[in-house]
């Protein structure tokens, strides 16, 4: 299960973001309209469905000069991002 908290320019992801979670996640990220930090400290897992939501959001924000900034990803998720070339299009801290 994926839990999402949102406050003051920060989106906190907790748990497992699999394809069954993406409708809810998409609604949350569609509500992001400026640069936002995505805290992945407690994100255990992400699949291509979640990556697609993040990419779609990043493309939308990018047209307005904004971006998502991803923080505290674990090593497994970092590797997934690298395999998809997302380390080139997201700021990852």
């Amino acid at each position, binding site marked *: 299960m994926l839990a999402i908290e949102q406050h003051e320019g920060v989106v906190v992801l907790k748990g497992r973001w699999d*394809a*069954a979670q993406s409708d809810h996640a998409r609604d949350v990220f569609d509500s992001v309209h400026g640069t936002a930090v995505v805290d992945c400290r407690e994100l255990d*897992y992400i*699949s*291509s*469905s979640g990556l*697609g939501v993040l990419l779609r959001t990043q*493309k939308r924000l990018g047209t307005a000069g904004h971006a998502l900034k991803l923080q505290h990803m674990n090593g*497994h998720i970092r590797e997934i991002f690298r395999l*998809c070339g997302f380390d080139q299009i997201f700021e990852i801290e």
Partner: protein
Amino acid sequence: MEERTLARNLTELEALFDFIQSFAPRHRVPDRVIASMSLAAEELFTNILSHNPSGRRPIVVGVLVEGGQFKIVITDPDAPDFDPTAYRPPDMQGTLQDRIVGGLGLHLVQQIVDDLVYEYRDRQSRITLIKNME
């Protein structure tokens, strides 16, 4: 091989993960292999649901350890012929503007597993994910 039948619904992902994660420790599958193969299995399962929406029969997932390899076998009993080993993903190195949303799942499968075997006969699609445990 242990098998589990899954309904053609994303809500079954929970059962898929539980199945893999209950089997794997009993057979000393390393955590990193469990994590990678769980992702690959999800990607194939969701791909089947997306690309065979008219399928009515449940999907069968089998897991086994054989010859130092962890294997997951996903069978769709009534499927079109689609070979995931022949899939060519979009460019993963393009700029943000160039990137298309989609095509990541099978790319990840191909990158994650050590071998991917596709068999198709009498409308049954059988895909085996293989990852070395060493």
